[in-house]
């Protein structure tokens, strides 16, 4: 009689198993609370729920576009590019000047549309250029330095861009006209602004294009290879410096597009915009799993959604606690599931 060998699958050390259990229970409890909260609010006032959900998803789309820049850069050189949010702010100011001051368009007509589309290209080029310059001037020289050095430089860069924004935009928030239609559309008494719809019409193709670049093209392959192992990639004939610069360029272009869309759909610019939105976007990137493109998008939409619900619903903390809610999500995610919702667990290389 053949003895059935019992195979014990190794699941981890006792500590790891305990930790996994805590993670699982925490996840269940948190999602249960979240679901209960959403349910209560849906029952309370369904139309208001739909209304704030639309607004939240609009912000979520912007967060997703910004988060992509963070996730791309982190994926390739493991640096939290604190300056990325401020790059977004500069792009928003750039598009305001491009449309309203340089091309003097302030209403929605064919000329306005034309300016909008040319501005999209211009601002993407602007974002890409600035981001590549930052990488070339500062980060590249610090690639072999200890971890703390590039991180502190990124914070300094963020202050520098903040200063440029302060001088360019002025110290107070500025209101700008929109050149795309901004009338309201009603779908069963839920008010949706036309700019929101346009935002998705511009944002989704951008995401698809980015996905195509990263997964299908040769430079995308080079990016993924560099992210995995810089030295091996260099030995395989990949120009690592150019690949990293390219990554910064597409991240910057996404931030540029987000800047234009923000400026056109919300209509105000402020010099300290980048800090708050950048942090929220980074939270989204971490929530989705940093280094994962679709994770960043999902995280952005989710954070936008939750923030929208928190700001607008009757049973919620309200807008003055908005930051606290977002950062609490960040901390919970980092503590319980540092790999994010869609990310893979990686062990630190030694």
């Amino acid at each position, binding site marked *: 009689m053949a003895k059935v060998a019992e195979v014990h699958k190794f699941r981890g050390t006792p500590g790891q198993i305990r930790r996994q259990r805590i993670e699982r229970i925490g996840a269940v409890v948190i999602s249960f609370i979240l679901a209960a909260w959403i349910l209560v609010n849906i029952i309370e006032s369904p139309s208001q729920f739909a209304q704030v959900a639309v607004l939240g998803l609009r912000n979520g789309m912007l967060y997703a576009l910004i988060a992509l820049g963070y996730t791309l850069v982190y994926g390739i050189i*493991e*640096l*939290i590019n604190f300056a990325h949010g401020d790059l977004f702010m500069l792009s928003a100011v750039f598009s305001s000047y491009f449309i309203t001051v340089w091309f003097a368009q302030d209403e929605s007509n064919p000329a306005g549309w034309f300016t909008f589309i040319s501005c999209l290209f211009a601002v993407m080029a602007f974002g890409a250029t600035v981001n590549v310059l930052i990488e070339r001037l*500062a980060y590249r*020289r*610090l690639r*072999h*330095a*200890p*971890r*703390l*050095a*590039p*991180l*502190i*430089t990124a*914070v*300094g*860069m*963020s*202050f*520098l861009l*903040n*200063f440029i924004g*302060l*001088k360019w935009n002025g*110290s107070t928030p500025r209101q700008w006209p929109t050149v795309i239609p901004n009338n309201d559309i009603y779908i069963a008494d839920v008010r949706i602004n036309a700019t929101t719809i346009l935002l998705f019409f511009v944002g989704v193709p951008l995401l698809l294009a980015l996905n195509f670049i990263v997964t299908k093209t040769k430079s995308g392959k080079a990016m993924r290879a560099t992210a995995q192992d*810089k*030295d*091996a990639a*260099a*030995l395989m004939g990949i120009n690592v410096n150019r690949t990293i610069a390219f990554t910064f360029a597409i991240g910057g272009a996404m931030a540029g597009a987000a800047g234009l869309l923000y400026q056109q759909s919300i209509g105000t610019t402020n010099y300290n915009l980048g*800090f708050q939105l950048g*942090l929220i976007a*980074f939270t989204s990137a*971490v929530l989705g799993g940093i280094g994962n493109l679709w994770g960043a998008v999902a995280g952005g939409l989710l954070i936008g959604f939750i923030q929208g619900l928190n700001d607008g619903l009757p049973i919620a903390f309200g807008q*003055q*606690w908005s*930051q*606290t809610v977002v*950062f*609490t999500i*960040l*901390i919970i995610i*980092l*503590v319980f599931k*540092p790999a994010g919702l869609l990310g893979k667990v990686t062990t*630190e290389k*030694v």
Partner: protein
Amino acid sequence: MAKTPANNVTKSNRKWVIGYSIAGGLLFAIYQFLLPWEGLPIGIYDAVYRWMPPAAVNESLVYVMMALGLNIVVGYAGLLDLGYVAFWAIGGYCAGWFMSEFFYFLNVHFFGSVPAEAPGIHINFWMVLVIGGFVCALFGVLIGAPTLRLKSDYLALVTLGFGEIIPQVFFNGENFFGFNISNGTKGIVVVDPIPVGVKNLGPFDYGWKLLIFMLLTALLVFVSLRLRRGRLGRAWLAIREDELAASMMGVPLMRTKLASYAVGAFAGGVGGVAFATHVNGVYAERFNFAISIFLLAMVVLGGMGNVWGVILGAFILSWVNGNGLSAFGSFYNERMGTDVDFPSFTFLLFGLVLILMMLFRREGLLPESRLKLVLNEEEIEDAEAVGKKAK
């Protein structure tokens, strides 16, 4: 027999006390006795008030205390903390809670400096310093315990999150689940004067307060230097230089990191209480993210890990931020007939300090010899190891 290390410790510790006392005594004498002296030429008086008013010196000293605390976390243990302002806020509110009429429905006095019939909690300033320090240390441990396991850049982000959350809690604190914990944007005004036995030091006794702040700074310097030499300090340095190697050598990572958080936060609490007595109140909007970065720039400029460098960096940058830039601006505008808004250049200045120091002089103005070696060590990559030429 060769000199034992223990001798070195006591020797170097005696030396700085003398220099520090002379510098402190001189500053105190200038601001307490020389400035009010009637025989002083009016030109000197004006120049001092223009370039170095007493309030600016005291504020710089508060920044020095905070920077010394941050230095323990960033400079010694190598953990990037981007939310240090949270400890400043907590320390400040400790002063607000325990040294004012904020809790008007209570009447608690403990060696306070106000008459016994005044409402509110009035605890002696020197005890509030300790309380503030310990409350902050507690929060440091609370923040650190779940997060210190994270990688360094995630840790930076989490501290940043806390640095945003805690000031927001105080900012919205007028109605914190039904309780008023901070008076919201109105702030807690009129903090008790500092009792020093013979008299009570109100908000305008700059000279004597300068002496007290110098004393507190000296205390923090002493603690920093002693800890640096001791077992804990060497464990911090080991973690800063190579976490993995340190843990292999038996340094308990979590406990050591938590200790650095707690000690750093304690210094932050002391600084926060001192600041509350300096501005004679606690205002929620003063605690913002920029302060955390200012403090980081001070530590980086002066030299991470070197106490004297940090003091120098904190003094220079807080002077520039608080008084120097605007004084220079008005001076320049008067001479040149221009109208340049100099204080708005703070962001540029602090950003450039961080970037340029990191690019060209990572070890700071007054480098710590050990850190200099570590920070400029080139990492040997796999490709270089197999023969690729270094750039």
